């Protein structure tokens, strides 16, 4: 009897360029609190390669600095929703969302009214703080 096929066909095993792997890890950590699994990194690299503006539309140094990437992304998004950094965050979200392991990050499986209201209140306060911080960092790094 043959083994069942993997849920999502895994991208071919191969090395992901170090800069892309680091970028994927950083974004994944912001969104999901841990480094990106290897398969997701490979898929992320493929998605960037398939994009019309490729992977080089973004200053790679952004990921090397120790700035708050989440704050910077938020500030850039408020000025231009399709800036190169937000695009990368969006790609990571799409790729993660169709993996069963991430289901609970996207979908409430049971009624969670209080948790929901709490998360939204926290989100509102963080938006004010990160908005200001991001605007400052974007100015400091000369990002638009």
């Amino acid at each position, binding site marked *: 009897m043959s083994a*069942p*096929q993997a*849920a999502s066909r895994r991208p071919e095993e191969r090395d992901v360029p170090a800069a892309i792997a680091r970028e994927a890890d950083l974004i994944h950590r*912001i969104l999901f609190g841990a480094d990106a699994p290897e398969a997701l990194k490979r898929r992320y690299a493929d998605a960037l390669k398939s994009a*019309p503006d490729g992977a080089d539309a973004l200053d790679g140094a952004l990921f090397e600095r120790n700035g708050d990437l989440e704050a910077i992304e938020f500030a850039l998004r408020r000025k231009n*929703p399709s800036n190169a950094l937000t695009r990368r965050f969006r790609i990571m*979200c799409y*790729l993660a969302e169709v993996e069963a392991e991430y289901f609970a990050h996207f979908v409430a499986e049971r009624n969670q009214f209080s948790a929901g209201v709490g998360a939204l209140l926290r989100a*509102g306060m963080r938006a004010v703080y990160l908005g200001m911080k991001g605007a400052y960092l974007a100015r400091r790094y000369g990002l638009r």
Partner: protein
Amino acid sequence: MASANVIIVGSGAAGVAAAYALRGRGVLLLDVGARPPASALKNNFYELRRDPGPVDLFGELIGNSFESLHNIFHPYLSPKLKAPGMKFVLEGAERLAPLESRSFEAAISFAAGGLANAWGAGLYRATDKDLKGFPIGARDLDPYYDVLTEKIGISGDDDDLGRYFGAARGLLPAMKIDANGAALLGRYDKRRRALNRAGLYIGRPRLAVLTRAHDGRPAYGYEGLEFFRGDNPAIYTPALTLKEMIARGEIAYAPGLLVERYNESGDEVRVLARESAGGARRDFTARRLILAAGALNTAKIALNSNDDCDTRLPLLDNAVSYIPLIDPRRIGAAFEKEFFAAATLNAVYDGPLWPEPVQMTLYGAAGTLRSDFLFDFPLAARDALAAAKYLTPALVIAQLFYPDAPAATNYLRLAPSGKLELAYEPKRRGALEARLVKLFRRLGCFGLARFCKHLAPGSSFHYAGGLPMKSAPRTGYETDRSGRLAGARAVYIADAANFPALPSKNHSFTMMANAMRIAAEVGRTLP
């Protein structure tokens, strides 16, 4: 050279309805006819995502060419049309029907079944008020609405929207509604009188979705997969009737052909086509020609046939706005396993802010990927993710379609390059949306007018008007009430190109009924 009694061009909603009226009478249907890929998606949208089993969820939901990431890098395409399983709907359009347009984002389909493969399945009868400016009335269409209702199997109700949606004859029982819809409808029932005085009416949609087995097709199972697969037999699309007529030998079907022009000589119409793959020329003749290639393509064929790069033809489109609303009581609610991903309810605004009734579709966001909209929240990325999780169950989106009438600024023309040139002045919107935000507040749904989205012209996919029906046509690009092009002997227009105006109400059902009416008239002229 192949010949037929009647050649029909295009297999969308109008072409198939015309063919259905003339089936068995020597019909040849010419079509490009892209087909959907086989979908492996079964079960339910959420169960699949929690436990995909052997299903390649990445391939089905994102696509091996990253199709679902389309809106990250390209102009907005509805979540349904960018899904990998729905890619066939627009396949080949850029090559086969190149456009020159700065302001109009047109979607053209060459698929078997046309744009209706991705429709929301809402089918509504037009009233006389909707047909203002048409040389026909609702009574002319009623017999054809009845035949189509029986053939398609339309679910719905006769409620507060009955006065806008026309007769409820032959409807199947209405669909189950989701928790958001049920809550909204319950509150509407309690405040009906005050809301009606303010011009707001709410009721159940009429949908081409089976609530019980019908005509050999099963009842809908509330899988919620509508955004990702277009081949659920419980949801009617014209492709089903096309397949059925071909299988029964009731029509001849020639796919892989792009019709470019026609000319009339003597008792014949000659139709000139090219193979959509290789480009080889193929000619056909018929006694009658019915054009139903989609409003834009049909107008292009007419202009091309006259080698006319000067005339500007009217271009109509339903301007679209989205109003996002939150029902706070539903924040953090658990996902519903069984739901329909398209219309939950309909609403009509019939008040002082707009001269004609404006129809809305209300739906939730449960049937799409959260990633489609989570970065629209004005929150930092991690919080946007949490908001998508907790707010999505509480989200109700009202989609408005504005009616349209001809205007000098809105036109289509055949450019000397052979491309179709489209020009359209975007409408100013906002006042009605702001009013509706206030009205929905009375129903416990909260929104802000500044979060409303006004989509670019062309985003409705409801195009019309190039070759309008008139009581007394004045130019060779108008048709009489039988759909016959003025100046032509045997060329008929059956799709929405013949609409002299575009009501707010989804026009698909009226286009189909009118196509049947025109085909029946054509049938009467045949020897």
